[in-house]
């Protein structure tokens, strides 16, 4: 099972409503993935800064950590709290020092980094997870989300999607991969690190590696058709774009819709049924083994 929702806005006027649109889509897909959920939102950047999204354990006092983080960052910082997650802005050249400081606190995880991307994920019913993080009030240009029914690895926050292995890059996956162990070994040799045993994280890592080697997202997605064995529907986000790819057998369902104002992906049409103007949208099923990509 699992459910995927993604939306890419063309109409700037809709940007303040991005989170509300995605929250509605994820709520509809609760029954496809009731055990955990997560989403990535591409909002406004902080000039000159990288955003790090941190996940904090319960009752963790971030204020106690701030002086050390500010010293590492060479500037004071004011975290934006979203339930168990905090977003901090870090000068780009100071990111390694901040990461090194955070590494002294193993209970704190870095969920994502990027100029614009913030990633939030937790175990629990997707509608409740979205409400905890106040997704409905988040703004941005594009966002992708996932409702998980775990099959491949444990129900943990780390096992929830999206997976991110590079700045502003994330991936959500419906399906399962059969060659992820071998591929993870290869990618580790290339210097990538993985936080879980999850197959989907390997797919995210593969795309990150290809793009690091100079491929565009489209080229990286194309290469994954040959490299990945198994079945999958992926929705992939980058700083400026949004891509969709299904394996050649296309077992996993997928529906896309497009109007002049937005492009959306849903595992089922039900997830798209509340989008503004959907009754006039072009609605179609993405073809197997074909790379779809939209970019601002």
């Amino acid at each position, binding site marked *: 099972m699992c459910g995927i929702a993604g939306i890419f806005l063309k109409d700037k006027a809709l940007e303040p409503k991005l989170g509300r649109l995605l929250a509605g889509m994820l709520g509809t897909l609760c029954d496809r993935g009731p055990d955990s959920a997560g989403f990535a939102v591409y909002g406004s950047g902080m000039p000159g800064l990288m955003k790090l999204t941190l996940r904090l354990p319960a009752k963790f006092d971030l204020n106690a950590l701030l002086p050390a983080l500010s010293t590492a960052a060479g500037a004071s910082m004011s975290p934006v709290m979203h339930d168990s997650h905090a977003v901090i802005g870090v000068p780009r050249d100071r990111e390694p020092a901040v990461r090194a400081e955070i590494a002294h606190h193993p209970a704190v995880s870095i969920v994502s980094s990027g100029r614009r991307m913030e990633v939030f994920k937790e175990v629990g019913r997707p509608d409740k997870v979205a409400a905890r993080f106040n997704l409905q009030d988040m703004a941005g240009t594009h966002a992708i989300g996932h409702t998980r029914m775990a099959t491949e690895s444990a129900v943990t926050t780390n096992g929830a999607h999206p997976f991110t292995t590079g700045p502003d890059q994330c991936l959500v996956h419906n399906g399962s991969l059969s060659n992820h162990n071998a591929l993870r070994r290869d990618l580790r040799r290339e210097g990538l690190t993985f936080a879980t045993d999850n197959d989907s994280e390997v797919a995210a890592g593969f795309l990150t590696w290809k793009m690091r080697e100079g491929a565009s997202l489209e080229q990286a997605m194309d290469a994954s058709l040959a490299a990945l064995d198994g079945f999958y529907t992926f929705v992939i986000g980058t700083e400026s774009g949004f891509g969709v790819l299904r394996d050649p057998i296309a077992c996993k369902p997928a529906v896309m819709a497009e109007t002049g104002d937005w492009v959306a992906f849903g595992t089922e*049409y039900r997830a798209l049924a509340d989008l503004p103007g959907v009754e006039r949208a072009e609605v179609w099923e993405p073809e197997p083994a074909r790379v779809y990509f939209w970019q601002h």
Partner: protein
Amino acid sequence: MPTVDLAQTPVRELNAGLHRLTPETNETHWRVLNPRGRHAIAAGIDAPILIEVEGHVGYYCAGMNKQATVIVRCNAGQGVAENMMSGEVRIAGDASQAAGATGCGGLLVIDGNASARCGISMKGIDIVVKGSVGHLSAFMAQAGNLVVLGDAGEALGDSIYEAHLYVRGNVKSLGADCVEKPLEEHHKSDLRRLLEAAGVALDPASFRRYGSARRLYNFHIDNVGSY
């Protein structure tokens, strides 16, 4: 004319109402509003009625249909008209995977494209797709006709038994034991009947016919008289 708005009424209630209909019913024309991709709309009907669904439907719409004519104005999700026994199902848009799967009878007409596995394991249903069909269509098809006005994807008719496949466009590849066969006069006449039923004015001679080479399954056609 009964009109059921699925924004107000659960699908179970709609279907329970449809299942209660008797052959003598006067409620012969139904409208269903706001389907919004819900699953199993108008599944399991056994009455000679017409149902018009105004919007996109989810999985298994009109599954197991007997006698009824179900018209969907937009797209259909997976398994539309699955295991249909008789009647008609018409989809104005595209259909997702496994359209008409295991259907035993009746007519399924898809005005747009059907994706993968259209007519998988069909057992007597007639399917007319005005657009193209995806990969592995008519997989293990046993009986009935699949007519495709556009193209067919990879492995058409893989492991086919005795269904008839007619494709007007290109076939990307044929599956195991599926071969092109001559289009005889009686095939053209079958095809003419199906095209007329689907409201299409095309020359049957513009289609190519595919079917089983009968090398893969044990039944040998020469022994048909023994059964």
